[in-house]
C-alpha cells in the first residue's frame, strides 16, 4: 500500500506540474504566435517566455524523483 501511495504521489507531482506547464504554454504560445505574425523581431523574446514555465514541470519531475528515491 505504501509503495502505491509513493508512486501516486510521484505521479501527481510530475503530472499536475506538467498540466500546469501545458496550460500556461498554451496561453503564451497562442499569444506569442499572434505577436510573431505582427512583429517577427520579437521571436527571441517569445521563445524565452514560452520556455519560462517549463521550469515548473522540471521541478515537478525532480520532486517525483526525490519521492521515489526517498532522497
Amino acid at each position, binding site marked *: 500500500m505504501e509503495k502505491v501511495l509513493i508512486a501516486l504521489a510521484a505521479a501527481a507531482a510530475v503530472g499536475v506540474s506538467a498540466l500546469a506547464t501545458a496550460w500556461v504554454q498554451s496561453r503564451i504560445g497562442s499569444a506569442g504566435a499572434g505577436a510573431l505574425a505582427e512583429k517577427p*523581431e520579437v*521571436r*527571441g*523574446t517569445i*521563445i*524565452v517566455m514560452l*520556455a*519560462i514555465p*517549463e*521550469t515548473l514541470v*522540471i*521541478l515537478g*519531475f*525532480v520532486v517525483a*524523483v*526525490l519521492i521515489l*528515491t526517498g*532522497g
Partner: protein
Amino acid sequence: MIRAMARVEILGPRDLLGPTLELLQARGVLELRTPVAGRAAPPLHPAAAAADAASRRAGLLETIARIDALATRLGPPGHASAGLAPPPPTTGELAGWLSGLAESLDRLDARRAALAEERTATELFSELVVALAPLRHGIAPAAQPELHGLVLRTDPTALRLLEAEVARLTDGTAELQSRPLDDERTGVLIAVPSAHAGAVSGLLYERGVEEIHLPAAYAGRPLVDVLLLLASRARALPAELARLDAERAALAAGWLPALSQARAAADAARGRLEAATRCGETRFAFVASGYMPADEVAGLREAAREALDDRVAVSARSPAPAEWPDVPVVLRNRPWIRPFERLLGLVPLPRYGSLDPTPWLAVTFPLFFGLVLGDLAFGLAGVVVALAARRRGVGGPVGRDVAWIALWCSVAAAIFGILFGEALGELGARLGLRPLLLHRRGSILALLGLAVAVGGAHVALGMALGVASAVRGGHAREAAARAAKLCALAAGGAAGVAAAGLLPGAVVEPALGVGAAALLAALLAGGPIAALELVLGVGNVLSYARLMALGLASAMLAEVANGIAGALRPAAVGLVVAVLLHAVNFTLGLLSPAIAALRLHYVEFFEKFYDPGGVPFRPFARSG
C-alpha cells in the same frame, strides 16, 4: 567579442562630396549618420535638397525597374559576351540606350509572333486542304474566288443551315464543300466570288465561327497551288523561327551583361543620392559622418589621400559612453567560434560596450548538449552526419555553421557517453564500456547534483560577467550589488554542499556568515530588489535540473528500445522495433537538448549580464 568602433568625420571641399561618396561606397566600411554642427561652426544643411533628391531617386528607381523588365524579357543569361558599355545612369543617354533595346526586342517579338501565327494557320489549313484537295470548285477564275476555311464540330443540321445561309447571301454563287476530318470534326471550304466575300466573312463573324485565316500570299490561288505553297511554308517556317530565336539569343548574350552593369550603376547612384541626404554641407565644404570599425580607419584615410589628392580630412575618435547606445555593433570572433554567433540570432544583438557572449556559448552550449545526450553511439552518429552535411555544403553558409555547431555538440555527446558508459543505452556496457563519471540510471540523485552544480557554476559565471560588464560601463554601484549577490550565492552554495556532507561541516557556519554579510551588502547597494533577485538566482540554478531530467529520459528511452529488442519474438521484429526506437531517440536527442541548452542560456545565463538592444552595422556600400 564586439569590434571596437570609431566615430569618423570626413571633411572636404563641397565639389568633392560626389567622389568621396563613391570612395566610401566602394570600400563599404562606414555607416553614415547625420552630422551635427558644433556651436561655433556654420550651420549645416543636407547635401542633397529633399525635393531634388526625391525626383532624382524616383528617376533612378524607374530606370532600375525598366532594366529589370528588359532583362526579364531577354530571358535567362546564356553565353554572355562582353562588349556593350552602358552609358552612366545619371545622364539622359541611358534612357535612349534602353529604348533602342526595347525597339529591337519589339521588332523581333512581333516578327516571331507573326511567324508563329503563320505556322499555326499553316498547320490547320494544311489539314483542311489535304482533306478537301480532291474537291474542285466550279467558280470561274474571272470571278476571283476567295477561299474560307473552317473546322466545325460535326453536325449535319448546322452544316445545312450554313450552306443555305451562304447561298442566300451570295445568290447561289458560292460553293460550300465539306469532308470529315475525324470522328468529331468536319472541314469546310467555302469558295466565294470576291464580290460576295465580305458578306460571307460578316456572317461567319456574327455567328462566332472562327475562320482559319490564310496568309495573304495564298489569296486567289487554286487549291492545288495553295497545297504546294503550304507544304513549302511548312518546311521553311521552323528554320525561320530558329534563325529568329538565334538572333534573339545573340541579342540577350550581348545585352544582359551590359544591363547588369547599368543596373548596378543605377543602384549605386541611388545609394549615393540617399547617402548625400545624410551628409551636411556649408557654402564651401561638406561633412560626412558615421561609425566604422576602428581598425579600418587607417586604410580609409590612406585611400582617401590617394583617391582625393589629400584634399579631404578624415578624423576619428572613440565613441563616448553616452553615445554607445547608438553605436552599431559588429561581432568578431575566432573562426571556430564564429558559427556560434548564429545562436544569438534569436535575441537582439548585445549593445555596444557590453559583453559578447559568443565565446562562452561556444563552450557551454556543446557542454550542455553533451550532458543531456551523453551517448557514445549517438555522438559518433552526430559527428558523421555533421561532417557529411558540412562536406556537401547542405543549407549554404547557414547550414555550414549549423553543421559546425552540431559537430561540437556531437563530440561533447560522445565524450559524455564515455563518461556515463553509454552507447545506445546499456548496449555499451555489453561491449565493455564502463561509467567513468557516474551511471545515469543508477545514480539519479548524483546526476541531479551534477546538473545543479553545473547550473550553479554557469549562473555564477553569468553573475561574474555581469560584474565585469557593470564595471566596464562605469556603473560602480551596480557592480558592487552584483558582486555582493554573487558572493551571497556562492556562500549559500558552499553552505549547502557542506550541509550535504561533501565539504567539512565546519564550513557551514562561516559560509552562512559570509552569505549574510554579502546579502546585507547587496541590499545596501542594490536596494530591496536585490533580495528578490537572489531568490530568482536560486530558481535559475535549480532550473538546470532539466539537464538531468532530459538526459535521464534519453537514457530510459534507449533502455526501452533495448528491452523491446530482447523481449520481442521473432528476434528480427524486436531488432526492427529497437532500431526505430533508437532512431526516434536520436532525433529527439538532437532537438530537446538543443532547445533546453538554448533556453538555459537565454533565460538563466544572459539575464545576469546580457545587455540587448545593439544596433546592427549597416555600412554604406554597393548592394549585392
